[in-house]
């Protein structure tokens, strides 16, 4: 670190300012009407129901669907609810309400409009939740969709463990790979064994929609199956796989009614939150600069980076990532992230002060200060990362890395997700990592670099009332 040169300060500053610009404004290119997103800006944030309003939709089971008994009804409705919940969290919709009325077999779902939605058409918005359809594999293929229910059922949605989109290099087509549950493996092996070579198809249905009707060439025993389709594109297989993974519903759900929910706080709340955020940041900057002078200036620049990093997590930053819904729990995550940054800078600056008071030279004090502060910041961040990881594993989507890693702990619980806690855990996780980047590394680089300027070597710029000169 001794070799940090003067220009480093400006490089770090430029990096943080660049990140600030990208996070706030994003990068978009336009081709006529088409907008291509390269970096997602603040306008791509999906705001919570209270700020922007949303959709209220009531799903119900079809009239002809009958549950065997009350226990079955409860279990079925709960399964459907947790599937919808997982689908929401998969898309980072973390502000939602889901209620189940067992007696009337209704599921009430409320969720916010997507970012940039101007049509406010609830019917359109509900499509985001994916197919409320029943996935079935049936023997044979009828000429009219009406009679597909007469075909013998081979396996259904609940027998599928997971699905993955795949590009088949051999014949250049897109397909969806299925991994079956033990419950499905046997039935599938039996059916494929019986039908192999007969030319009878196994047709795959989403409710009344045939997706694919491959013929069986050989028996499939390993519990893996492939869905191929005549007109499958890359997008089509990804969305089909996601829909199956989001949980194939155990039965079909119909929309009973839908309506719009007005924002309780109103659109002005959004502007208020933005102004409040800027004012709060200014307050932090003033206090830090007042307390720590030059180190406070460096801290403020680092904190800007930390704040923008936390905001970039919310927007998703890269076009492939969906924006988290910004609600008060999300704001809590940002505040904790900035507070961690404040803390790292306070700890370091206090250490540097102490070292200067003991009579060290400026270079010696800076080095000792950063070194001593690092041990404790490291411990704090690692602890937070551990906790954040556990929260993500417990309350995130079942396919996420954290959830798979923690499967041995939470194996007793079925797939369930809790958006608010998950988004908090995620923000905390990234916040701790950002703290290493901005609170520790960036601030150290900037401080070493400015201490190379002759005019900035007066120790009184770093801590007041110190006698010796560096």
């Amino acid at each position, binding site marked *: 670190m001794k070799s940090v040169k003067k220009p480093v300060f400006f490089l770090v500053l430029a990096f943080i300012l660049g990140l600030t610009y990208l996070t706030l404004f994003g990068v978009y290119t336009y081709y006529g009407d088409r907008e291509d997103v390269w970096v997602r800006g603040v306008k791509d944030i999906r705001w919570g129901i209270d700020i922007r309003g949303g959709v209220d939709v*009531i799903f119900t089971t079809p009239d002809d669907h009958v549950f065997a008994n009350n226990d079955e009804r409860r279990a079925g409705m*709960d399964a459907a609810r947790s599937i919808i919940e997982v689908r929401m969290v998969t898309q980072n919709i973390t502000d939602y309400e*889901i*209620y*189940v*009325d067992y007696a*009337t077999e*209704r599921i*009430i779902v409320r969720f916010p409009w997507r970012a940039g939605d101007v049509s406010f058409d609830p*019917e359109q918005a509900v499509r985001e939740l994916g197919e409320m359809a029943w996935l079935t594999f049936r023997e044979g293929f009828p000429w009219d969709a009406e009679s597909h229910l007469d075909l013998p059922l081979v396996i259904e949605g609940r027998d599928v463990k997971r699905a993955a989109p795949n590009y088949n290099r051999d014949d250049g087509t897109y397909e969806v790979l299925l991994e079956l549950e033990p419950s499905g493996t046997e039935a599938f092996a039996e059916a494929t064994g019986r039908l192999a070579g007969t030319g009878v198809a196994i047709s795959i249905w989403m409710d009344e929609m045939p997706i694919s009707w491959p013929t069986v060439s050989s028996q499939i025993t390993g519990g893996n199956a492939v869905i191929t389709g005549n007109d499958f594109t890359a997008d089509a297989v990804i969305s089909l796989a996601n829909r199956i993974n989001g949980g194939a519903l155990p039965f079909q759900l119909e929309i009973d*009614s*839908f*309506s*719009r*929910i*007005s924002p309780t*706080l*109103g659109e*002005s*709340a959004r502007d*208020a939150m933005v*102004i*409040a955020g800027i*004012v*709060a940041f*200014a*307050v*932090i900057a003033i*206090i830090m600069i007042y307390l720590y002078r030059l180190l406070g200036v460096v801290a403020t620049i680092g904190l800007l980076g930390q704040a923008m990093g936390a905001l970039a997590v919310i927007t998703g930053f890269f076009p492939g990532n969906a924006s988290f819904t910004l*609600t*008060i*729990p999300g*704001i*809590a995550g940002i*505040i*904790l992230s900035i*507070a*961690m940054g*404040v803390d790292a800078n*306070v700890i370091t600056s*206090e250490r540097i002060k102490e070292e200067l008071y003991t009579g060290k030279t400026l270079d010696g004090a800076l080095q000792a200060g950063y070194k001593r502060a690092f*041990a*404790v910041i490291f*411990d*704090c961040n*690692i*602890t*937070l990362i*551990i*906790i954040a990881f*556990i*929260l993500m594993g417990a309350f995130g989507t079942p396919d996420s890395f954290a959830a798979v890693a923690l499967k041995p*702990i*939470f194996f*007793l619980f079925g797939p*369930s997700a*809790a958006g*608010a806690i998950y988004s*908090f855990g995620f923000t*905390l996780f990234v916040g701790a990592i950002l703290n290493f980047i901005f609170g520790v590394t960036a601030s150290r680089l900037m401080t070493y670099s400015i201490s190379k300027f002759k005019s900035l070597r007066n120790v009184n710029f770093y801590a007041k009332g110190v006698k010796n000169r560096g």
Partner: protein
Amino acid sequence: MANSKNKFDIVAHKKLYLIIPAAILAATILVILLFGAKVSIEFTGGTILQYSYTGEEINVNEVSASVSDLGFNSAVITTGSAFGSDLQLLNFSFSASDGMGNDEQAQVTAMLQQKYPDKAITLENNQNVSATTGMSFFLKCLVAFVFAFLVFIIYIAYRFKKIGGWSTGIFALIALLIDIIVVVAVFVFFRLPIDSIFMAVILTIMGYSINNTIIVFDRVRENKSLQNRQLSARELINKSVRQSLTRSINTTVTTAAALLALSIVAVIFGVATILNFAFPLTIGLVSGIFTSLCVSGTFWATWQERKIRKG
């Protein structure tokens, strides 16, 4: 007692550190038993009613006051509009504590129709919903927290093995639990709704509390390994707490000032819900200073001294 040169003795008041949290805990439990907590519908289940009406938009605050007059205190009211027609909608969520039966629903309907006779108020939907977060959710939370605490204790014990290992982990956890109790107390005393904001505040304070405690123990670790091998546990704690004092105060004051600024601007613009979040969070921050500077270190020092006495 231990060090006559040093007037600053945080350990001297150790009884107080037990009494204060215990009193807060007792008061919280008492208030919950007597008045209950304002738990939101997602945790308790309850009744959702949807009314449609025509004409000008109804003022939610007015309706809210009338509903409370009927004795239903938990109602959350939102407005909306139907799609494909120009009907306006009023949505009510009553948590189970209001015990909505058919009679109670009829009461609300009658009140609305009486209050707004020319708006053609009609009950569109009524659902008795179960808790979104049922028993299995709470069990999962419990397992998640117990597991997180275990890993936390193991990590702290490993990193601070020079100054007592397991005992540091356990005392850090006690400090954390006290902070959580304080936050719960704020929500219960001030009748703030127990909902997802509540969970966010608890989690934020958890993160904060952990940082605070680690910072004090880090000083103890350093003071012990540096020049101060001969200091007693009590002297070590006092020295370390004194050294951490400026940091704790500066960090907390800065964060609290930012929260205050955030709240002021938000309230000026009419977003008062931010207070449900900022106020308990600020109290939690203050509690964090108290527990990290007083509780965890004091208990640790007492524990160490007892260990030495016992040999």
